[in-house]
């Protein structure tokens, strides 16, 4: 057992534990904190899989921006402990459980049968995760789409301002 395998195991156990805390705790803030911890553990998992860029994005976007949003909403709604509701099984939950089980089975079969994907190369795959590789691709091969997305976002911001400007002067 190398160090990375140990690290992977520890991080995954912590990730699962914090996910359980998120869905079982009664207080919304505690749930949210569980979620933040879960996001950090996931970022760690990405690092052990040599995907530094996704790990950084995970921390910046999810653990940073999205969590601030979640906690703001909790604050604005002024939520306390959740009240006990009558528990009813709704069809959405059944479908969700079914799909989750299907995903588990699928991942399990891939692990057990050890399928090899044609053209899969470990070194190339490890290289793709680095920020350097992504930056190189984005600013050489995909420079036009990147610039076009810049214009797209500008248009979206202008549109939002036009529609939401408070005063009609």
């Amino acid at each position: 057992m190398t160090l990375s395998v140990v690290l992977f195991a520890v991080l995954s156990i912590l990730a699962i534990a914090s996910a359980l805390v998120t869905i079982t705790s009664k207080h919304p803030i505690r749930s949210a904190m569980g979620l933040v911890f879960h996001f950090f553990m996931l970022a760690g998992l990405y690092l052990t899989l040599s995907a530094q860029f996704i790990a950084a994005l995970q921390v910046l976007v999810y653990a940073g921006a999205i969590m601030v949003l979640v906690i703001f909403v909790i604050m604005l709604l002024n939520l306390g402990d959740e009240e006990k509701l009558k528990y009813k099984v709704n069809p959405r939950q059944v479908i969700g459980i079914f799909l989750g089980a299907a995903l588990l089975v699928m991942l399990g079969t891939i692990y057990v049968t050890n399928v090899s994907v044609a053209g899969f190369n470990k070194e190339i795959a490890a290289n793709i995760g680095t920020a350097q590789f992504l930056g190189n691709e984005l600013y050489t091969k995909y420079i036009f789409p990147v610039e076009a997305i810049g214009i797209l976002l500008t248009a979206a911001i202008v549109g939002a301002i036009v529609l939401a400007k408070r005063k009609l002067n």
Partner: protein
Amino acid sequence: MSMEIIYGMPLFLIAALSVIVLLVDAFTGKNKAVAYYFSIISLLAVAVSAAISLNTNIPKSGFDTTITGNNITFGGYAAFFDIIFSLAGVMTIFASKPYMKREFKEYKEYYSLVMFAVAGMIMVSHANSMLMLFIGIELMSFSFYVLAGFIRTRITAVESSLKYFLLGSFASGFLVYGIAMIYGATGSMILPDILNKITTGNFDITYLKVGFALMLVGLAFKAAAFPFHQWAPDVYHGAPTVSTGFMSTAGKAAALIAFVIVAKSVLPVNISVESVTSGSLELSKFTDSARMVIAVISAITMLIGNISALVQKNVKRMLAYSSVAHAGYLLMGIVANNQDGWAGIMFYATAYLFMQIGSFVIVGIIEQNNERMNFDDYTGLRKNHPWIAALMAIFMFSLAGIPPFAGFPGKYMLFVAAVESGYTWLTIIAVISSVISMYFYIGLVLTMYFKDNENGLIITDISSAKIPLAISFVFVFLLGILPGSLIDLAKSLF
């Protein structure tokens, strides 16, 4: 290097100028004329640069380069559509100044949003990869969502904007999922690569089928084709009339050119004979059934659009339904799936753009406070405003496909292309639905000319809306009597 910059000029210019117009807007403060004229001049500059790159002698299918990572194609049909889209933008801006002043307030953001929409359309026509295609469609749609709800004190406009946004983003989801599936099937986003892999049998047929089906849903929504057309009448009716004219013409043309670009690479015309394997047999089966599906969509779209337009009392809503029907006619070119069909789409999209923008501009100058849009309001228009009535009659004749106006040769090209590729039944349905459409187009003309009204309507303010009317009239007339040059050009570009 330098040649590429000349060919790519329309794209680079519109991308830069659509952002610069915001800065011009910010630095000129209360002076509204500067941003107005700046956007008109920029769009004209784009049109001129596109005309230059259209005239240069370049390969038919465009011009791929390595500096652009093969994401963009230059010249050819892309340059032609650049001209059309920027002209549509110019006409919309001219028509919207008096309209917005009267109905709401003249905000300069309107002009920059029109420019952004034109930038999106130009990206679609220049797209050489699924990525650019998607970004272009999204840029166009984002601008449309805002243009539809621009008069935000008017409840119908807000409703139309929200409806368009919610349904449109859902359709975009389908589109991007389809692109992902096609990427999974072929391993490439670049359209010529996809075509190459498909013709050499180097792909996965199941994923290709699923991917094309999903893309078909997304694109049919953007073109307002059956069964994804229900949003169109509500959105086109609720939006400010000048925006409707722009969305229902240039937007539809952009969606159709996206359709052509996708169909050209995913539904290959000639499957290579030397590799007649079970795979290529399956591929030709897939191509045939895909064309059949599009043919059925096209037939139902034109019937539903025209039959629903029959019962409308409101001219704007009638035109909205008839624009659904026109999407059906345009789809016939995709069904034909050959050079003639694509050239037909190019011609008819051009003709349709001018006649439909022209008629929406007239609806816009007659309407007041979201009223005066019923057929009854048009009675006696001949007496007070003979010129407006005559122009409206010309646009109606052209939309109905009566020679010598632009609608006729366009429809003729599409119908012939469908017959020649073996879809005679589709052409019969198209002819029947054209006959149905005569009823309401000619009905409007009859209302204007033969029903008298003691106190006929008075139009107060036309001002710069004259310019788009003049442009529309010239093109509807010229393309009607001298279609040859554009037909030849269209056939040489595909």
